[in-house]
């Protein structure tokens, strides 16, 4: 079992990351990945130049690892990877990359889905959209909380 979670201040190279993950996942029957990108428009259609992710050094890394560990424990997976950016992320750049490997596809799909719902609500970040008309902090939404509630035991 390999469970890796990393906080990155530099852009994620998804091809390189996926290549390494597939090498390490040899023997698994399924690999599911999710890539989250910084949107170019906000909920009102305004143009976004960049996203800024404020983080708490130490606590943020621990939250990413705790979420990855929980995903690995909860589903029948052989490998979990969580990569998350912090700092300023230009529109179109990758914010988060999640991968899960398993013997069969269902566990890999569920693990990736679970990891993203947890990251959206429990990872220690504060998100600010930098638009052409100024910036605004993003608060968690009811939809985010409902997504997380799907996994309540």
């Amino acid at each position, binding site marked *: 079992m390999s469970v890796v979670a990393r906080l990155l201040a530099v852009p994620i190279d998804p091809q390189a990351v996926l290549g390494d993950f597939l090498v390490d996942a040899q023997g698994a029957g399924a690999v599911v990945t999710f890539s*989250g990108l910084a949107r170019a428009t906000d909920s009102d259609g305004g143009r976004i130049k960049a996203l800024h992710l404020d983080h*708490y050094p130490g606590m943020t890394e621990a939250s990413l690892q705790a979420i990855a560990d929980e995903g690995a424990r909860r589903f029948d997976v052989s490998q979990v990877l969580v990569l998350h950016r912090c700092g300023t992320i230009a529109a179109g750049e990758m914010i988060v990359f999640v991968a899960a490997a398993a013997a069969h596809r269902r566990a890999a799909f569920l693990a990736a889905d679970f990891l993203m719902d947890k*990251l959206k609500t429990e990872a220690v970040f504060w*998100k600010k959209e930098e638009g052409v008309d100024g910036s605004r902090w993003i*608060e*968690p939404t009811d939809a985010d909380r409902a997504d997380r509630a799907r996994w309540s035991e």
Partner: protein
Amino acid sequence: MVTLGSPDTGTTILFFGRLADQVGRQCKVLLPAGGCTIGDLRHRLGQQDGYAALAEGTVLASADQRIVPDDHLVRSGQEIAFFSPLSGG
């Protein structure tokens, strides 16, 4: 009694998220010898000029990087932070 300390003395309080835009990234406070609760620290600090945003009900607190409730006791030397609700990745 909680008072603001000088840059060279006191316990550092960290701020993150929208709250940091309102009160700054950090400040120093002098905690009572026996410590105080997070709620008391929030209340006393919130009465200082420029820190009123701490009174917002949604502001969370941590001690030594663990989220704690208002009745949690903190002492000088601990790592204490206040922040806006987490907005995830």
